């Protein structure tokens, strides 16, 4: 009973947070909704008795993602009137949720027929995770790090190019 009520509260928080994130126009409130969702997700992991995953979730999603996105919001410092107008937002949300629904069902079905040792969380701790990452899963781990590196490089390249274009466009405007 206690577990179910905690689960319900966390689920409410997560749902509310994610809806806030999608619906809100101001990026700050979206970031706050994301924060609430991520803390709720960490709480879910903690409820499943997986401490390491819960703390890693808070560390990565809150400590890195939310802080960085907030920093971006602070740096851009967009005024309310400069935010993009989204007249058909709710239609789009409805449409995309209908499109995604079958995939959600698919994921649910897949997860419910997973082999038993996947749900045996009692043995998972940081040591096991670390050993697995550097023995059995070393190739996916390295590929993931290359993916992150390429994303970083891409961001730098895009940032540089846009500066040049800006200068060009400014010149054109002057002409």
């Amino acid at each position: 009973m206690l577990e179910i009520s905690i689960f319900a509260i966390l689920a409410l928080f997560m749902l509310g947070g994610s809806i806030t994130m999608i619906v809100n126009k101001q990026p700050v409130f979206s970031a706050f909704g994301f924060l609430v969702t991520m803390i709720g997700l960490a709480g879910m992991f903690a409820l499943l008795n997986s401490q390491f995953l819960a703390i890693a979730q808070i560390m990565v999603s809150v400590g890195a993602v939310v802080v960085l996105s907030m920093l971006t919001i602070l740096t851009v410092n967009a005024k309310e009137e400069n935010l993009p107008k989204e007249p058909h937002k709710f239609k789009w949300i409805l449409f995309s949720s209908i499109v995604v629904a079958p995939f959600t069902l698919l994921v649910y079905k897949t997860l419910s027929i997973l082999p038993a040792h996947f749900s045996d969380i009692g043995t998972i701790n940081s040591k096991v995770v670390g050993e697995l990452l550097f023995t059995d899963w070393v190739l996916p781990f390295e590929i993931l790090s290359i993916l992150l590196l390429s994303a970083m490089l891409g961001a730098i390249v895009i940032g540089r190019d846009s500066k040049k274009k800006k200068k060009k466009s400014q010149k054109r405007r002057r002409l």
Partner: protein
Amino acid sequence: MSTASIVVAVTAFVLGALLALLTIPVLVWLERRIASLVQDRLGPNRTNVFGFRLGGVVQSFADVVKLLLKEEYYPSHIKKGRWLFMLAPVITFAAALLAFMAIPFADTLHIDGEALRVQALPIDYGVLWYLAIGAIGVLGVIFGGWMSHNKYALLGATRAGSMVISYELPLGLSIVSFIVTYNTMDFNAMVQWQSGTFFGFLPAWGIFVQPLAAIILIISLFAETNRNPFTVAEGESEIVAGYMTEHTAMKFAMYFMGEYVAMNTASAVIITVIFGGYQVPWVSTEMMLAHFSGFALSLMIAIPVIVFLLIRWMRKNNTVRPTVSTDSGRNFETKVLSIALIGMTLLIEAILLYLAFFANSPLGESISVMLFQIVVFVVKLMAFNIFFILIRWTVPRFRYDQVQHLGWYYLLPLALLNLFVTALVVVGVNS
């Protein structure tokens, strides 16, 4: 769940909450008195309740009353999201409070073969918990700064955020090198690792085993807690009060208290990771339990000496100049406090005498060792808090670009290098 485990868990939780919350007034008082000491004046020492001034601690309670009774004022230009404006200080305060909960106050109690942790939140990933929850704290600062719709607040919030990002890396890397050395992520196991000796005579504290990582850890924790010399987020001379410019009354007090709780937590992490936590140098918990009568005897000699010195110091200092006609109850306060101290000493002596020579109860012995370790922990915690405060009042503030320069150009490469060397040494020793 036996009764003992429930009792220990509840006690540890209450102890954690009290240690985090009750140190706030003491820290505010220490801040003022030490600032006065540095600036050669007395500081607040007049506020009293029935003549008891306790050196001025009562002033902090008067301050709390003042802040509670102040008018709640909202800047009228904040139209949307007032709730987030109000919630932001609470996030900072709650995160600082929660981060403290993973600190062990004493060694694991063994009652009837059951191992009970004296830790408010008994988890194995104490270090990760501190890093994770510590990162939430800055979000309160950023949200508050953004919601204020104020240039200074925005600048302060940006500075706080970018500083946390640039100092999280050296902090994390230095902690990783401690994790590699101690081979654990558990605060309690870290403290147990530090109970031995290093080179035969030094206590195996982190600061002797990993001096470079220890210095990086201390510097980055100073930056993480927004204390001087890293107070760029609220640099009065540049950006008024930074992120808290628009916050008044209790909202300001939340930020203020959150800063002190964060400082307390940072001191606790520092002493747990690099100063041996609750342990006395050269003496491990097992040694104290094995030679309990010797431990009790040395305590029975040490406590009266400390209390005698304390009473003499109090009698000398809690007076007024002879030219002043009335001492407004200072003699009375000294007398009452002396009697209370002597009574407590006699009680402790009696209990120790009984436990050491007349009773043979392992439970009582382990509980008294636990209490002794808690006292050692609090003494170390306060000593490090005083260090934090002394730094604030003696070192001038860095400029913002200097802070970033220090973080990225010196601390990060040094921490990386240290981690590399540590890994090489650990692999070399173990293979």
